[in-house]
C-alpha cells in the first residue's frame, strides 16, 4: 500500500513543483488580491477604489486603505495592514510606474465606459504582473491615434518613453530573433525606434570605432542581454564571418580588424598568420572572390599596395576582376582603378 502510493505522490510533488517553476501555479508567499471574489459578491469597483472617479493625472494612487476593507471585513484576522498580504507587491509598483509615466485620468474614461471598469481592466482577475494595466491595444480600441502614430507624437500619453523603459508587448514586439530582425524593422521606422531608444543605445553597437568596450562588458552582470559579440565570440569570429560573408562590413569599417590582429601578432608573416602555407600561390584569389570584405578587413587602405604589386595591368598577377564586373568609375583617375590602370600604374 505504502509502496503503491509513493509513485503517484512523488509524481504529484514533481508536477506541482514544475507548475510553480513554469508559472502555471503561483507559489509566492503573498496573495493576489481576490478581485474575482469581490465582484462575484456584488461589490462594485468604486466601493473600494472610491477616489478613482475624481483622481487626476497626479496625486496618490486610488488603492483602498485598511479602513475601507474593514467596512465589510469587521474582524480582520490580525492587526497587520491588509495590503501587506492581500495583493502582490508588484501591483503597486506597476501602478506607481503608470502614475509617473502616463498622462491619464480616470474620471472622463469612467464616463465614457459608463462606469464599467472591466471594459479596460479586462484581465484584472488574473494575478499576473502584466494583467494590472490595460494593454495599449485596449487604448487603441477606442483611441485610434493614427495621426499621433504617424507623427511619432507619443507625448500626449507618455511622459517620457525613454525613461519609462517598459517593453511593448502588443505592438512593436521585440521578441523573436530581434538582433537579426531589428535592422529590417527599423528601416521604415527609425524615428519610431528613437521615441524609446536613446542615441547612445544605437551607438553602443553601431558606433563601432568609437565604443570603449563591447556592449556586454558595459552591462556585465546582465547575462540575459543578447548580442552578436557576446560569450566566446573572440574564438568563433572567423567562423561567424565565413558563415555570413559581408555581415561584418555592415557595421565595421574596412581595416577594423588590424588593431586587434596587430596587438595579438596575428598578422604578417608571424607563426600566427591566418593564412595557410602556399596562400600566395593561388588559394588567396579564390578566397578573395568569395568574400572580398574579409581581405579588406586587414589589407584595406595602404595594405592594398600588396595586391597592386602583382595585379597591376601587365603585372604577373593577372586580371582580378570577376566575370561581368562593371563600374562607372574613370579607370585612369578614380580610386581604386588608378592604382592599376593609372598612368605609371
Amino acid at each position, binding site marked *: 500500500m505504502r509502496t503503491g502510493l509513493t509513485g503517484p505522490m512523488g509524481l504529484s510533488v514533481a508536477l506541482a513543483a514544475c507548475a510553480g517553476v513554469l508559472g502555471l501555479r503561483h507559489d*509566492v508567499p503573498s496573495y493576489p488580491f481576490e478581485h474575482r471574489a469581490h465582484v462575484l459578491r456584488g461589490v462594485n469597483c468604486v466601493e473600494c477604489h472610491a477616489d478613482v472617479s475624481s483622481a487626476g493625472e497626479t496625486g496618490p494612487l486610488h488603492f483602498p486603505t485598511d479602513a475601507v476593507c474593514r467596512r465589510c471585513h469587521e474582524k480582520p484576522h490580525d492587526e497587520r495592514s491588509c495590503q501587506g498580504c492581500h495583493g502582490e507587491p508588484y501591483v503597486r509598483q506597476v501602478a506607481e510606474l503608470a502614475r509617473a509615466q502616463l498622462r491619464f485620468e480616470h474620471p472622463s474614461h469612467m464616463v465614457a465606459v459608463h462606469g464599467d471598469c472591466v471594459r479596460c481592466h479586462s484581465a484584472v482577475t488574473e494575478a499576473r504582473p502584466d494583467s494590472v494595466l490595460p494593454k495599449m491595444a485596449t487604448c487603441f480600441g477606442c483611441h485610434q491615434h493614427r495621426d499621433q502614430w504617424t507623427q511619432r507624437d507619443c507625448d500626449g500619453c507618455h511622459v517620457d518613453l525613454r525613461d519609462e523603459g517598459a517593453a511593448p508587448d502588443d505592438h512593436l514586439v521585440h521578441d523573436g530573433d530581434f538582433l537579426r530582425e531589428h535592422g529590417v524593422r527599423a528601416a521604415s521606422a527609425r524615428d519610431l525606434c528613437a521615441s524609446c531608444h536613446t542615441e547612445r543605445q544605437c551607438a553602443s553597437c553601431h558606433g563601432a570605432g568609437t565604443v570603449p568596450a563591447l556592449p556586454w*562588458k558595459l552591462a556585465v552582470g546582465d547575462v540575459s542581454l543578447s548580442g552578436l559579440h557576446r560569450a566566446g565570440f573572440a574564438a568563433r569570429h572567423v567562423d561567424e564571418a565565413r558563415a555570413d560573408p559581408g555581415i561584418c562590413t555592415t557595421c565595421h569599417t574596412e581595416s577594423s580588424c588590424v588593431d586587434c590582429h596587430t596587438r595579438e601578432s596575428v598578422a604578417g608573416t608571424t607563426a600566427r598568420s591566418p593564412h595557410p602555407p602556399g596562400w600566395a600561390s593561388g588559394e588567396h584569389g579564390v578566397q*578573395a572572390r568569395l568574400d572580398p570584405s574579409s581581405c579588406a578587413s586587414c589589407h584595406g587602405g595602404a595594405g592594398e599596395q600588396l595586391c597592386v604589386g602583382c595585379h597591376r595591368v601587365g603585372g604577373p598577377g593577372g586580371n582580378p576582376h570577376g566575370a561581368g564586373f562593371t563600374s562607372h568609375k574613370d579607370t585612369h583617375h578614380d580610386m581604386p582603378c588608378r592604382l592599376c590602370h593609372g598612368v605609371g600604374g
Partner: protein
Amino acid sequence: MSCKITANGHPRRRLVACAAAIASTVPLASRVRADPLRLRADALAETQGASSPTGLIVLQGEDARRPWVNAEGLVWAGAGASSATGDVLVLTLRLHEPHGYADARAGRFVLATGAVHPVQIDGAHVIARAPWGSTVETFGGLPVVPRFGTRSYDWLVGGRVAQRVASALTLGVSYVQRREDGELSNEEVGADLAAAPARWLDVAAFGAYDVTSPGLAEARASAAVRWTDWRFELFASQLSPGRLLPATSLFSVLGDVPSQTLGATVRWRAAPRLDLLASGAGQDVAAGLGGNGWLRATLRLDDRGDGSLGLELRRVDVPDAEWSGVRAIAALPLGKGLRYSSEIEIVVPDHPDGRGVAWPWGLSALSWRSRGGWEVAGAVEASSTPLHRYEADALVRLSCALGSISSNVPGSGGQQPAPSR
C-alpha cells in the same frame, strides 16, 4: 529645477548652479517625475582590456517648459596601451516640433534610415512629416573618424521620401552618396517597406542598389505572424560583400558573389515563464550551400523575470565554417539588490585544424544595485581560444545614475526590469 531658474545668468555662475542642482537632486532622484538633467557615470576596468580602466559619462538634458529641445552626450576616456585614449560616442542636440511635424538632430549620432546602412556621422538629420502621411528626410555630415583622428575630404549626403498608404503600409525611397578623400566611395538608391495589414501580421523589407557598380548591394525581408503564444517569422536576405565595401577599396573590384539566406523563426511561450525560440535558415554562400539553426529556451524564475535560466543550442553548417555550440545562462537574485549570474559557452568546430578541439568560455558575475542609483558588478571571464590555450580576464564595473536614466546598452534590463505595456 534650479537649472531652469539660472538659465539666463552668467555662464560660470550658471555652471556652478547646475552642478549644485545636480548634487542636490541625489536623494530626490527617485521622486522626480521627469528629470530635466540626467547624469550617469560608468567606470569599467578589465585586466585584458585595450583601454582599461575606462570612464564613461552620460549627460541627458531636457526642459519641461521647452519640450521641443533635448540633448544627449556620452564621452569616455581610458588608459590605452601606451597613452591615454578616449572618444565621443554621442553628442546630439535634438529639436522637434511638439506635434511631430518636424524633427531635427545635429551633432554626432548613428544615421540609419530606409535602406541606408548605419553610419556614425558628425552632421545633421532633418525630418519633416505632413498630416497626410508623407515624410521627407535629409541628412549630411562627416563620417566619424575614431579617436579624434585626422580627417580627409570625407562627407556623406542623402535623403529619404516616404508615404503612408491607408494607415497600414509605408513605402520609402532613399538615396545616399558618400565620398572618401573626395572620391566617390558609395552611391546607393534604396527602397523600404513596412506594412501591418492586421494586428497579427507585419511585414518589413528593404533593398539597396549600388549605382557605382550596378547591382543589388543588400536586401532583407521579414514577415511575422503572431497568434496567442506563438510567433512565426519568415525571413530572407541577400548580401553582396563586394558592394558593401567602399567603392574606393581595391577589394570592391573583384566581382559580385552574393550570398542568400532564407529561413524561419518560431517563438512559443510554452508556459507563462517559459519561452522557446527556434530558428533555421538555408544559405547559399559563395563557397556553396549550407545552413544554420539554433534552439533557445528561457525560463524565468519569477513573474518579474529577476532571475532566469537559459539554454541555447546552435549549429552552423556552411562550407569552411562548420561548428556546433551550446550556451547556458543563469541569473539568480540573492536579495537586497544582489544578483549572481553565470554564463557558459562551448563551441566545437568540425575541423579544428590545429585551433583546438573545443573553445570553452565562461563568465561568473556578482552585481549589486542600490536604490539610490549605484551599481557595482564584478566578473571573472575565462576561455580557451584558437589563439590562447588559457585566457582569463577580470572585470569590475561601477555605475552611478543621477536621475532616472536608461542603461547605455539596449535590452539591458538590469536587475529590475520594467513591466511590459
